């Protein structure tokens, strides 16, 4: 039970980060049906920028929260500029090209961003400096840290803010109209280019904050972190129903929980010594004295998101909250 609560907390933490990153994929997809492969790299760059700032301010004597805030404040505009640049330079010229073209461009941009980050920050990870003492609170037999609480609260606040923005503001309505039909939205006087650029910029800003939180949670950031984080967030978006904002949030949190639970229990579940009939000849020796024979341990953590993706695509390709995604006629 302790493991369960602990993994619930951990899953909620990573899940809310996935959810915020997934929003970046889903907003862009909702409007122009493009998977922005480079989104994960934008998130990574946000984290790298923030950590550079945080590390350089670590000895300044500023209060720790102010330092982190400075990091985030530096990361947001950096990512927004990159997001805008991506849309303007890489994707917009290809808006009427065959589908394969923007996808390949997205891959290209992802490689470019990742290796530019490598040039700027080098191969070594940047560690979060010891400026915050991270208090830990006991819940049942498990514990939740201050950082976890902050991440969960901040992510939910961002999701709430985005929902308000998209459903209650004029610009949000323009985004939803463009998502319905770019051409018609244009006829209604909506500047579709501006809306599309805005989805990139908003997604990048959210991603920047998510990147910083993800890095803070694990204590380090690295130029390759965007790939796997992006992949998982995309899985989350598909799980919830890509193009659907609520879906990205639900999918992200659910994926975080599934991943945490699977990682927490897979060792136990695949331990052949715990299986009935575990006394077969070759196992007897291994299982004696509380030994184990774990087929798959927690080192398979990165596999689960992908398995979820495959399962969703097989059984409910439109995702939990999505509309149908099969090729339109």
């Amino acid at each position, binding site marked *: 039970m302790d493991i369960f609560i602990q993994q619930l907390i951990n899953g909620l933490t990573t899940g809310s980060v996935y959810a915020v990153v997934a929003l970046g994929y889903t907003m862009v997809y909702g409007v122009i*049906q*493009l*998977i922005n*492969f480079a989104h994960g790299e934008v998130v990574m760059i946000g984290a790298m920028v923030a950590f550079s700032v945080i590390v350089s301010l670590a000895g300044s004597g500023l209060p720790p929260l102010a330092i982190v805030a400075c990091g985030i404040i530096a990361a947001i505009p950096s990512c927004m500029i990159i997001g805008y640049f991506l849309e303007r330079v*890489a994707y917009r*010229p*290809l808006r009427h*090209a*065959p*589908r*394969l*073209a*923007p*996808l*390949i*461009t997205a*891959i*290209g*941009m*992802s*490689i*470019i961003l*990742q*290796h*530019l980050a*490598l*040039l700027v920050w080098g191969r070594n990870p940047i560690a979060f400096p010891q400026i915050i003492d991270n208090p830990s609170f006991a819940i049942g037999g498990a514990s939740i840290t201050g950082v976890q609480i902050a991440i969960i609260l901040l992510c939910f606040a961002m999701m709430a803010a985005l929902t308000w923005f998209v459903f209650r503001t004029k610009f949000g309505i323009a985004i939803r109209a463009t998502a319905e039909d770019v051409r018609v939205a244009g006829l209604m006087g909506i500047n579709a280019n501006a809306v599309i650029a805005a989805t990139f910029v908003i997604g990048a800003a959210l991603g920047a904050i998510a990147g910083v939180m993800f890095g803070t949670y694990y204590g380090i950031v690295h130029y390759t972190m965007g*790939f*796997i984080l992006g*992949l998982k967030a*995309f*899985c989350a978006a*598909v799980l919830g129903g890509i193009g659907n904002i609520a879906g990205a949030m639900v999918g992200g949190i659910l994926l975080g929980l599934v991943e945490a639970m699977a990682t927490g229990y897979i060792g136990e579940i695949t331990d052949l010594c715990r299986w009935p009939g575990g006394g077969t000849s070759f196992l007897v020796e*291994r299982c004696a004295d509380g030994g184990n*024979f*774990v*087929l*798959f*341990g927690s*080192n*398979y953590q*990165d*596999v689960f*998101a*992908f398995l979820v*993706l*495959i399962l969703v*695509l*097989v059984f409910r*390709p439109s995702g939990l909250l999505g509309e149908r*995604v*099969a*090729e339109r*006629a």
Partner: protein
Amino acid sequence: MANFITSLDKKNKLGLALIAVALIVLPFVLASAGTAWVRILNFAILYVFLALGLNIVVGFAGLLDLGYIAFYAVGAYVYALLASPHFGLHLPFWVIIPIGAAVACVAGMVLGAPTLKLRGDYLAIVTLGFGEIVRVFMNNLSNPINVTNGPKGITLIDSFKIGSFDLGKSDVFGGLIFSGPIKYYYLLLIVLLAVIVINKRLQDSRIGRAWVAIREDEVAAKAAGINTRNIKLLAFAMGASFGGIAGGMFAAIQGFVSPESFVLTESTMILAMVVLGGMGNIWGVIAGALLLSFVPELLRYTVQPVQEALFGHAIIEPEVLRMLIFGIALVLTMRFMPAGLWPEARHRREMEAKREGKK
């Protein structure tokens, strides 16, 4: 092939003969500069092989496969496990290579079946994930039963042997030293020729036309009676098998496999070869693959010394520069010449037709 040769005129026959002679002599010329160059050439041919396999998927059928290297990895590990001291198995290569191809093919179908009926983007992301999963398994399947030997990889893999003739060892024929790499070069050359012929024939067949039709307009292809899901799956499975075969040869030539050889950047590099060369055009893809395989060597011998001369040390590692070049190549190609440096033959045919029309 026979038709092809007889249909050539005298001038072309002479040209073909010259190319053949050049290809036969090439390894000896390179060997005089160092056996390392023959190895580089061999790996370049393997890349051509891979690029042609991916071209079936991306170029012909228009399906974006971003985890192609995973099938290469599957082929390589199948060979490594069945022909090394790791399990004490030493099956002959002509048994293992088809097994590797079959395993890769099945992996491709399992992956493609759920995704191919959906939008193309899903295939891209699923293959991307698959590449990563295969790497996770290669790295971790060393416990509790040691299958892959983890990040350390598998060593002492058998070379190709036919009876007592070992492609991995040096032999002397008629006073000439045929080193291992040179022997493999000839094998690769023969295999490559076969692969080119197969690709060409597929392209000009009923199946090849169906692939291109799907790439051009899937709805129209369906209406014209093509079972698009099956035909796409076929392209995907064919591409995967090619990757599996190439992987087996890689394992034998290298004598060593580890997860390091099968990272995402390799997938992207092969994609860049196909895209830059010209999706769908066999000769363009070959040219793209050769060009990009020699880029790292080129950078090693140019950028590195130049940087050292200018700054005293290398600021940009050639490896990073290489990836940047690939990324930029992908973006610029899509933007300015989506058909690649050497566009598909029909485009060229069209150009010629126009030019003749103007005369």
